[in-house]
């Protein structure tokens, strides 16, 4: 077994510097790497490019980094629910590249898989397709989209072991499983780091080969963005 466990979040982010491109897992606030984000706020790294489906909310998730003006560019599919984001985008302080969600996921997956580029119909005939190579397959037009290149991927899982194997819970799997192994260094933070051998190999969602560093995170807030319930009876 190859040991991936690091002692702390500060060790996990060793080598992170200004101007880097980062992948961050999560959908909305579900399954975001809370510990890595807090550490980046503490470190004060600047001019970072974030590949993340969303941009957090004003006071949580990536919103914390936006508030400190640490993000130069966001590559996302949906960025509503964030006033500071809107202000920075409209004032030109923040670059924003909006891309279709399935294309975002597949560009991560392609980076993970060593596929340099792929064709997808999403966005053909819209401004997303402007300046991109297009080609017809089976009578339908497609756009050429390229794999991402990133320095770090920060992913969050439910359980993991020192070998880097990951198991997710519910819809918190989302982009986390696509981003693991898609950057030069993948850091996984988990709610529970269990002893090697205690996870059933049949139940692993992300094999440890895709993870370089793993640690048990602390104080997960797991904030709910839209609490929707029905009354009992």
């Amino acid at each position: 077994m190859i040991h991936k466990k690091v002692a702390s979040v500060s060790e996990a982010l060793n080598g992170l510097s200004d101007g880097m491109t980062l992948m961050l897992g999560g959908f909305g606030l579900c399954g975001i790497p809370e510990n890595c984000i807090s550490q980046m706020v503490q470190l004060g790294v600047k001019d970072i490019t974030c590949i993340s489906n969303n941009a957090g909310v004003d006071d949580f998730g990536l919103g914390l980094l936006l508030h400190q003006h640490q993000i130069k560019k966001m590559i996302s599919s949906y960025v509503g629910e964030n006033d500071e984001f809107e202000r920075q985008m409209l004032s030109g302080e923040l670059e924003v590249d909006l891309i279709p969600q399935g294309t975002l996921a597949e560009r991560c997956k392609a980076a993970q898989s060593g596929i340099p580029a792929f064709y997808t119909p999403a966005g053909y005939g819209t401004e997303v397709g402007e300046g991109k190579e297009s080609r017809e397959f089976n009578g339908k037009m497609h756009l050429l989209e390229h794999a991402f290149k990133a320095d770090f991927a920060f992913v969050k899982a439910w359980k993991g072991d020192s070998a880097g194997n990951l198991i997710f819970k519910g819809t918190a799997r989302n982009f986390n499983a696509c981003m693991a192994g898609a950057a030069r260094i993948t850091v996984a933070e988990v709610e529970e780091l269990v002893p090697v051998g205690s996870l059933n190999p049949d139940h692993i969602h992300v094999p440890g080969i895709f993870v370089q560093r793993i640690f048990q995170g602390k104080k997960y807030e797991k904030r709910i963005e839209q609490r929707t319930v029905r009354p009992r009876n």
Partner: protein
Amino acid sequence: MLDKNGIAKRIAQEVKDGYYVNLGIGIPTLVANYVRSDIELEFQSENGVLGMGPFPFEGDEDPDIINAGKQTITTLPGASFFDSATSFSMIRGQHVDLTILGAMEVAENGDIANWKIPGRMVKGMGGAMDLVASAENIIVAMMHTNKRGESKLLKRCSLPLTGVGCVKRIATNLAFLEVTDHGFKLLERAPGVSVEEIINATEGTLLVEGTIPEMNI
């Protein structure tokens, strides 16, 4: 004239036994409330769940189980979770049978615009561009006119497009329509709405053939 729930009710009649269905945010979400109880179907949400159930009871909400609208949800027996790339394999690979989504504008050739108003807030397209580019069966749920009373069924969309030539059917507060090679074909009138009212509220080419029945809802 229909309200939002009425539009959802009409669209629910188009959901067939055995369908996998993706519901967009807004009116489409309401469709789940009106599907006949005697048919089997599963709702897919693009953030990574198939077999979505109703909202949880108070106190049972789980931050790790949400839908694409970031709402807390439950799952039904037979449900599954998966990553975002797998989710869009279901969508792009045409494994999802029906896509229901909202729109700001629809053109008579089936173009749809629903993600951006230039100069105002741009929230992003989310999964809408992937959905409309690949889905074979797309129904749009929307009001027939905007807040200023202007038609949302146009000859050409004025807003940035989400997809081209993809919308098949449209349910509005006034009518149920089909997109054809020659324009919007009026299939049904909403209760109490005249053909003239629909003609007046439609900027795009409207095909009215024979007697147009009133919706049965």
